[in-house]
């Protein structure tokens, strides 16, 4: 297990160093997030709907799209110069490779969310002061769920036709359970409700993460083996 994680970390670090040095993907994903938030601002009637009622939906739709964008490029990177083949012949297990991509994607999406959350608070004047810690916890739980399935699927779609279109079509149904949970918890948190009211949802989110992390770890080797 230690070996697997150590290898995973090495590859994840390589991916992240690449991303941080070129910065194109990070910057485009962050700008995309900011733009989606502005689109939401103009896509509603501020005199008719209070922002706080709409805030959870705005936050999560934005994060869902941002995650989708980030996941689309996860394996795209490895297609150039057939880098994926290089990774596959390297003396590391397929499980390491999956966890590497999982870690890199989580960090990538996490960074984009770190940009998105303050902008969301700024643009929509949402009071998050007292609930910041639990809110970040929920975002982390849901993001792991998004990325666990997304990483598995992005490994498959790169070798299909219309990859950019295929990923959302396959992935969106899988994002529904974590999305519902995250929106419900966010709404309760922003509404000042106690955490005890949302334990059911948190349990569902955690169960989703565990089940799909396990399943994706088991199934990933099938998607890359020759």
């Amino acid at each position, binding site marked *: 297990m230690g070996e697997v994680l150590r290898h995973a970390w090495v590859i994840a670090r390589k991916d992240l160093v690449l991303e941080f040095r070129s910065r194109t993907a990070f910057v485009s994903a962050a700008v995309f997030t900011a733009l989606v938030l502005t689109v939401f601002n103009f896509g509603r009637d501020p005199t008719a709907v209070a922002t706080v009622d709409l805030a959870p939906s705005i936050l999560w739709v934005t994060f869902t799209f941002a995650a989708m964008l980030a996941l689309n490029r996860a394996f795209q990177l490895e297609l150039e110069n057939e880098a994926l083949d290089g990774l596959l012949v390297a003396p590391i297990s397929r499980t390491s490779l999956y966890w590497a991509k999982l870690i890199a994607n989580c960090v990538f999406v996490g960074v984009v969310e770190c940009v998105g959350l303050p902008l969301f608070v700024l643009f929509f004047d949402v009071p998050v002061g007292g609930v910041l810690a639990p809110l970040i916890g929920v975002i982390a739980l849901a993001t792991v769920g998004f990325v666990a*399935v997304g990483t*598995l*699927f992005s490994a*498959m779609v790169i*070798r*299909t*036709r*219309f990859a950019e279109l*295929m990923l959302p*079509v*396959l992935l*969106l*149904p*899988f994002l*529904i*359970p974590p999305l*519902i*949970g995250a929106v*419900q918890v966010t709404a309760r948190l922003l509404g000042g409700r106690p955490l005890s009211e949302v334990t*059911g*949802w948190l349990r*569902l989110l955690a*169960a*989703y993460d565990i*089940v*799909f992390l396990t*399943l994706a770890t088991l*199934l990933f080797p*099938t*998607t890359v*083996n020759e």
Partner: protein
Amino acid sequence: MTLAQRGRWLTLVGLVLLAGIYVRALAFTPTERFQGLAQKIFYVHVPAAWSAMLAMGLVGLASILFLIMKDYRFDRFAAASAEVGTAFSLVMLTTGPLWAKPIWGTWWTWDARLTLTLFLFFLFIGYLLLRGAVSEAPLRARYSAVLGICGLVLLPFIHLSVYLFRTLHPMPIVLKPSAPSLPGSMLVTLLYSFGVFTLLYVGFVMQCYALAGASDVGGAGASDA
């Protein structure tokens, strides 16, 4: 007789029996007191839902078996089952709103079971799209098996999350801890239509499977022949 021919005969028998369901449901089964004639759609809607669920379950099962045994017949079966499942879920998604409009006063609502079946439909479509987007047969088989298994695991999660969200759909009346709460004559009609829809499922899948086999000949998937 080839598999396709046997499938065709089975389907034909199923279609004749389907006509029998209409006759039995309309002429020989009592009309429900509150819902009136609208309730008759129950005998088509519920069995169609059953066949769609059965199809998804078998797609998942065949996917697991394919990954374990690497036998392309399972892959072909999963593809056939998904195709037939799409048709049945379409029947379920069209008959549902037809009933819901007069009874609930709305065509659609985001109730747990409705949402579940809608996503069942999306999963089938996604599954078939993925198959269409991969040209190499071994790759296609592995990818679709992965999606089939994930889909099967996803459905309980969707059901649970939307159930926690809110629910409006009539509660189960047959498969529940206590005895079925519908009159015997209605139950007989329902069970009969369950049988007919299962027969239709088998008939359709046999034909799809045979067709996939025929189009695979000469292709990369022919290695299983």
